[in-house]
């Protein structure tokens, strides 16, 4: 959706005062585009609902107004991005994302089938390798201790209703 606003964005620069540094902050451009995209999504969805009147607001009225504000803010963020000093984005935690984000998903996929104990062990193990410093031996030991601790605290002491070992293991 960012392209749609590009002509506007260039036009705002064309007035002259920012001609010397026409560069824009990629961070602000992405941020503004994200606001605009999300705003448009909510606006379109809300428009499909009943808007109603100011007196009797329908389910779409308030979200539609908010979405409009978000789009406006997105435009302002992009314009401001051309004026401020830019700082680099910094490193991105690719390895972290690769191992951290799937961990809760893995827990969700296996907690019913495998049961609490094996599922938590796998989750912790996957998460542990998000760090470059983790060694396999340390990880096994650490996650083993973590699982034991969690079973004692959450399953026995707090009595959370989890099956410790699930049907996939023939229990």
């Amino acid at each position, binding site marked *: 959706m960012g392209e749609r606003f590009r002509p506007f964005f260039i036009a705002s620069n064309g007035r002259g005062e920012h001609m010397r540094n026409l560069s824009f902050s990629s961070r602000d451009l992405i941020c503004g585009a994200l606001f605009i995209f999300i705003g448009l999504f909510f606006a379109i969805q809300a428009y499909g609902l*009943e808007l109603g009147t100011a007196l009797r607001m329908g389910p779409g009225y308030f979200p539609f107004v908010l979405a409009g504000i978000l789009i406006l803010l997105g435009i302002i963020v992009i314009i401001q991005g051309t004026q401020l000093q830019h700082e680099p984005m910094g490193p991105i935690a690719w390895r972290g994302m690769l191992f951290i984000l799937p961990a809760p998903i893995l827990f969700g996929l296996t907690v019913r089938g495998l049961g609490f104990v094996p599922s938590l062990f796998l989750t912790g193990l996957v998460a542990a390798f998000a760090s470059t410093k983790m060694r396999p031996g340390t990880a096994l030991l650490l996650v083993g201790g973590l699982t034991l601790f969690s079973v004692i605290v959450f399953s026995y002491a707090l009595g959370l209703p989890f099956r410790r070992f699930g049907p996939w293991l023939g229990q």
Partner: protein
Amino acid sequence: MDLLNNLVLGFATAASPYNLLFCFIGVILGTLIGVLPGIGATATIAMLLPITFQLEPVSSLIMLAGIYYGAQYGGSTTAILINMPGESSSAVTAIDGYQMARKGRAGAALSIAAIGSFFAGTVSTILVAVFAPPLTAVALRFGSPEYFSLMIVGLVSSVALAHGSVVKALGMVVLGLLLGLVGTDIYTGTPRFNLGILELSDGLNFVALAVGVFGIAEILRNLENEHDRDVMIKKVTNLWPTRQDWKEMTAPILRGTVIGSALGILPGGGAILASFASYTVEKRISNTPGEFGKGAVAGVAGPESANNAGAQTSFIPMLTLGIPANPVMALMIGAMIIQGIVPGPNVATEQPALFWGIIASMWIGNLMLILLNLPLIGLWVKLLTIPYYMLFPAIIAFCSIGVYSVNSNVFDLYAVAFFGLIGYGLAKLRCEPAPLLLGFVLGPLLEEHLRRAMIMSRGDPMTFLNRPISLGLLLLAAAVLVVVLLPSIRKKRDEVFVED
């Protein structure tokens, strides 16, 4: 003598062995996460929220409150010892506290911080007890326009307190409000924004959102560049402040308490603003402003008292109006709702034991902190030497368990991963998560009161301006917004927040 009776009821509730135990667990846990960088009070409370479901309502809220102010204590310990504020409200303490530590006066700095905090905690507990009932009485007369305007003040203040761009913070509020509306429209029952996903018809899960944007995103940020924390700590000796210290700290502690208490009550205020304000005041009125930044006693005593007072009085809007002043209070409201308590002015009259029990527990918790933490400083220092890669697998595991136990719904775990990604992305774009969370909590309430107010006024938007309290609140919100947008103040604000 109502106050006395109420306080007696409160202390009777808070001092039951069961509640004392959870207060103790709360403050210990709070100190622990305050000391450990990379996990904050918000993420911890979000993680533990589902587990508190198993406890009595009073005990769970007492424990969560303990985590909150315990974290302030822990945060100042690391700020003083290794110049690394564990919580953002202790950022100011690091300036002079660390300098004192370098001069071999770490023990005195820690004691001054603890004594200041305890004094401020005691005074602000009394203030909460004195001011909560009359505010509750006022709040009971609030109609929808007043509630709407009050929430606007809270949201605007959260924007003012966010780091970096004001426009982005406003965007985060609006995004939070929109996310809060996902689910089903309460008036008509129309499903909206649920993308056809059945699990979304009750709305997004608050715990999953909070754990994702605060917990998971924070871990990803810490993994960006892993470096060993070189913790060089001299042995902490001589805890007792000298006579000179006592002389230098008394006035700043008193002023810090007043400033902190006042700023904490404001919606959106709280500990961070209070500590910055106190430092600025102390530096300005000091006879020896040159000492600041080189280990001034007042630079530790003032802000530490202020942030504890602010943390405490920020419970006032939460307890009396059901309006959260910051993300932690938003989570406390979430905890109340999980327990089936409707937050708002009725809590004080319908659940007096809960209401006064929480207030009394704050004082008990502060007493526990001062008795425990000074002797235990050695232990906390040891904890700092644990490398981060040993910690975060546990954080992930506890997040997963916590979120799953809310309603044994696997979908919530996928939501955690999703919001973790979103939260990390937003952090990279320099967007703060706190206004988003506040917006998310207030979204449905804001819409409800807006619609109700408009129906009551027959569609006349002037209803927000014709009612004096509502008008006053809206003017306050407008003033805050104007102030943060003024170029000169914006510059100052950037300087103040540069520590982070």
